């Protein structure tokens, strides 16, 4: 039980507890703030896996962009900040059966499968290797992502814009 394991369990606990509070909290602004901790916990897990670039991207894009957008969206609909969300479930028995089956299937898959593994390496900075593969192997995906971002920009701004009445 070395330091690595302790920090892993710490981040995993942070992520799971925050995710639980995101789902069950009755005030939606509190849920958004617990989502912040969940995303931060996931960034910590990325670091422990050796994906340093991905952890920084997670914090920059998810926490610094998507969460802000989420909070703005919540604040725009200002009538719902004071309304508590009904989190009661209606069909408890069927839901419990399906979730139990799903969780059991997932658990047995995660534990019993022989995953393709590589020998563990000392973690190194991944940005350079990522850049190389973006330019050589995955250049088509790189360019299509540019067009995807353009389409997302045009589409989202078109829907969110409030038109001037002529």
């Amino acid at each position, binding site marked *: 039980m070395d330091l690595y394991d302790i920090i892993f369990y710490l981040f995993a606990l942070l992520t799971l507890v925050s995710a639980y509070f995101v789902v069950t909290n009755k005030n939606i602004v509190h849920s958004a703030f617990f989502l912040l901790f969940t995303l931060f916990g996931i960034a910590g897990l990325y670091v422990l896996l050796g994906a340093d670039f991905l952890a920084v991207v997670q914090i920059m894009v998810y926490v610094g962009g998507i969460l802000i957008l989420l909070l703005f969206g919540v604040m725009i609909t200002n009538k719902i900040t004071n309304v508590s969300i009904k989190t009661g479930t209606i069909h408890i028995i069927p839901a419990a059966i399906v979730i139990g089956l799903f969780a059991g299937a997932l658990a047995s898959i995660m534990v019993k499968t022989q995953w393709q593994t590589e020998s563990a390496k000392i973690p190194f900075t991944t940005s350079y290797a990522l850049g190389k593969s973006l330019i050589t192997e995955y250049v088509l995906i790189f360019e299509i992502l540019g067009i995807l971002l353009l389409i997302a920009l*045009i589409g989202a701004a078109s829907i969110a814009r409030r038109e001037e009445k002529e």
Partner: protein
Amino acid sequence: MDLTSLNNSLRLITPEIILSIFLVIVVVVDLILKSNKKVIPYLAVLGFAVTGIVVISSLDSSGFAFITASTSSKQFGMFAHDPLGGFFKLLILSVSIFIVLFTITSSEIKQIHLRSGEFYALMYGMVLGMMVLVSAVDLILIYVALELLSLSSYVLAGFTKLRDRNSEAALKYMIYGVVSSGLMLFGISIVYGLTGTTNLYLINSLLQGPQINILTLLFAVLLIMAGVGFKISAVPFHFWTPDVYEGAPITITAYLSVASKAAGFALLIRVIQIGFVSFVGSDGFWNLIPVFDWKALLVLLSVLTMTLGNLSALWQNNLKRMLAYSSIAHAGYLILALATLSTQGVVAVLIYFIFYALMNLGAFYIVMIIADRTGSEDIDDYDGLGYTSSFLGVSLIILLVSLVGLPPTAGFIGKLYLFIAVLDAEMYVVAVIAVLNTVVSLYYYLRVLKHMYLTKASDSTQSVRASGGEKIILLLLVVPTLLFGIYFQPIVDFTKSCITVLGV
């Protein structure tokens, strides 16, 4: 980066490059023109036509673009340029040209004509996503292209923002689509964990190895089918279809029902044929790697889809919803053709798609013309319309008879080839179910004709006159429906030459 292979790859993706250039041109022209945007639709049609010509000219060449993975003997890329991809690209481009022509005359889009430049830019994004999706053989490229296609269609479904129904349709579509894309990504990640690669060809060779856990692969393939089934509206992933088809602008409904489904089916054909087929027998039947029982899954999906689509359409009074359920039923027939797991099945799918595109586009166009003039899509408002607008009435007769699958229309030929493939595979029970479903569909299609011809027009129904341009477009769809019912050999020959998939 090896320069010759790069040049080769760029030459193979020329249609997509041209499409991207036209997308940029459409966006820039929309920027420059402030109020008069009439030239943009014609520019869009020009772009689609030029891309279509390039696709036709390169239909016989095949090869891999963007080599990413290689075994000791062969090299595989992430983008496969082959005749099957070329067929679907041509189908998608011609459907897109028709949809742009529909949009020029649609009154829903005329109300928001200041934003119509964005409409065409989003359509270009959707077409680009579909073109890459039908040729992609790497799981990551499949996912990125699927997201490009889905994102544009979410926005297009709620584009007009004029009624609550539009925004509701876009919201339902988006939530459902994002969840199914997420499930598909989870399935892709499990497949990557099992095999260590994302290229479908390499997955094929690795699945034949000894240590693949069957249960894990079952789980992963079911999750991937959640994503694919969403696009093709298979039951139980079909719940978005009636609401979205009813709420979206009718040109987008027509587009989603044909083009988006075609892209989803191309994806399914590729995943099965490249990922799970070990060799193709001389009688045309595929021999699958025995890790996953595709036949059982596809037969189950097709029976559920056909039955639910046809039975639900019986109760619908809104024509758009009825056509939505009927397109679910047609997806069921198509999955049945694919469930035969043979080259005859793929030929049947392709032939059925061409005719289904013609019939469905025509039916939606007539509903659009009537909705533009009378403002209603309810079946009771079609009373007596057959006598006041004889041109529309006769066209609708031909199209609805073709949708049922009666001779001498193209729909009959499509169903004929489908049943030939199914009986060739000795799946008799499912064939009987399909015939019963066709009989059920007779009722709800002919109910429209009964309202149009056998019910007296009430005082409030207006007569609908189609303008000259609309008549020409409708003739372009109706005449081939009749013609291909009688003289269909060139279509059959064309599709038979298009079914070769690269490397199988």
